[in-house]
């Protein structure tokens, strides 16, 4: 019986994701990096960041059956956010490329802008602006003025996604100076509460902070993170999410996290695998987010060389982890691509 119920839930999840009238937001499992795919009920699509690997992002877009992209956005110019935007632009030739107006100096950045030029994609500098993705309202949170232009994180672009009563917020790798400036600029009623929130900077220490989260009031937090050397997500960030009563999802543990929002704002969250970290249930969320079984099961990653593993943000790989390859563990100590 349990198996039948699981199958029914899986079918329901697929049906919800594919039915017209629903908004889907996928926090893609791109390893260490960010990539969020938003598809409106009308089939209009937005890709907010693209992770740090071209082949990984390309495979995910194919896996999720993306037919077109109307808008791509780089929260800022760091490689773990923009690399996957290159094939996205080459393949789908989106109409617009939203950016913070501050060029990066890496070859990756140059490749991205060149791809946009060749595709005929119009650049859009972030400003106070609304972009309607079909019936889904996207409000741009541009970097506040006065922040140093030589620091990309501090100039991350935020996006507020609204559909009926549903609200989701994503703010790149913002740091405290940027969130503090946004707190001054926007009323609390604009910032929160949000049903789904993308953790800032993969749960880094200098991203989310209590003052900001008390305004945003996230009910569910998705941490987009993979194996990394930076200590992401930090225990402090995870404790903050618990403190504000949010249920936490992690792409390194649950894979791609999908939110399907029905007209009016009711939503469900499904994950590829695993279970989320339950919220500290001091208060009951107004909109319960049922967690279903996996909707899709991607093939485990395979890296022939350490260069591939690093490009995917997966190195180092320990024995037992998906993608571990003894051929790349030269000293045989159980850790490949150290």
């Amino acid at each position, binding site marked *: 019986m349990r198996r039948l119920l699981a199958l029914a839930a899986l079918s329901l999840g697929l049906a919800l994701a594919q039915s017209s009238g629903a908004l889907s937001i996928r926090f893609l499992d791109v390893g260490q990096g960010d990539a969020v795919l938003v598809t409106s009920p009308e089939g209009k699509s937005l890709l907010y960041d693209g992770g740090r690997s071209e082949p990984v992002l390309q495979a995910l877009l194919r896996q999720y059956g993306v037919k077109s992209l109307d*808008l791509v956005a780089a929260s800022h110019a*760091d490689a773990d956010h923009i690399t996957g935007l290159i094939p996205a632009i080459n393949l789908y030739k989106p109409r*617009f490329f939203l950016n913070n107006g*501050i*060029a990066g100096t890496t070859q*990756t950045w140059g490749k991205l802008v*060149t791809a946009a030029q060749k595709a005929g994609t119009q*650049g859009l500098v972030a400003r106070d602006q609304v972009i309607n993705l079909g019936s889904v309202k996207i409000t741009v949170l541009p970097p506040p003025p006065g922040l140093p232009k030589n620091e990309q994180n501090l100039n991350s672009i935020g996006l507020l996604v609204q559909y009926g009563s549903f609200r989701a917020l994503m703010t790149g790798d913002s740091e405290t100076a940027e969130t503090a400036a946004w707190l001054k600029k926007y009323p609390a009623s604009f910032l929160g509460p949000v049903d789904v929130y993308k953790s800032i900077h993969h749960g880094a220490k200098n991203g989310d902070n209590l003052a900001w989260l008390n305004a945003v009031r996230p009910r569910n937090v998705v941490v987009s993170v993979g194996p990394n050397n930076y200590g992401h997500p930090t225990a402090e960030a995870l404790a903050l999410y618990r403190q504000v009563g949010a249920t936490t999802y992690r792409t390194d543990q649950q894979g791609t996290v999908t939110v399907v929002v029905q007209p009016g704002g009711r939503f469900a969250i499904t994950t590829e695998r695993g279970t989320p970290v339950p919220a500290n249930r001091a208060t009951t969320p107004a909109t319960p987010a049922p967690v279903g079984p996996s909707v899709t099961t991607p093939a485990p990653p395979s890296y022939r060389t350490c260069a591939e593993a*690093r490009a995917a943000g997966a190195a180092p790989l320990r024995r037992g982890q998906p993608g571990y390859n003894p051929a790349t563990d030269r000293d045989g100590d159980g850790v490949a691509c150290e």
Partner: protein
Amino acid sequence: MTSEPPEPMLTGRLTVDALEGHLARVEREDGSLQDWPLTSLPRGVREGDVLRWHVEGRHLTFEIDLEGTRERRQAAQAQLDALNGAVPAGEINL
């Protein structure tokens, strides 16, 4: 008597993609990313800097390529500004 040929000197460039705590994420010339301890790089290195490295014998040294950084930044900004040139007014409907 033949003198030994001089050891070849290897050189190359790295670009600092981001600083992450005590690490710098750098982009190599082949486009791949690596994490380097910040302490192994020149003092005062900043996000976006282009670094020159040299290997001579057993010694690896780095220096910030100020001119290379400036040129790269100016060219990239001009390219982006051109792309962002025609901004549509008001709400955008997709």
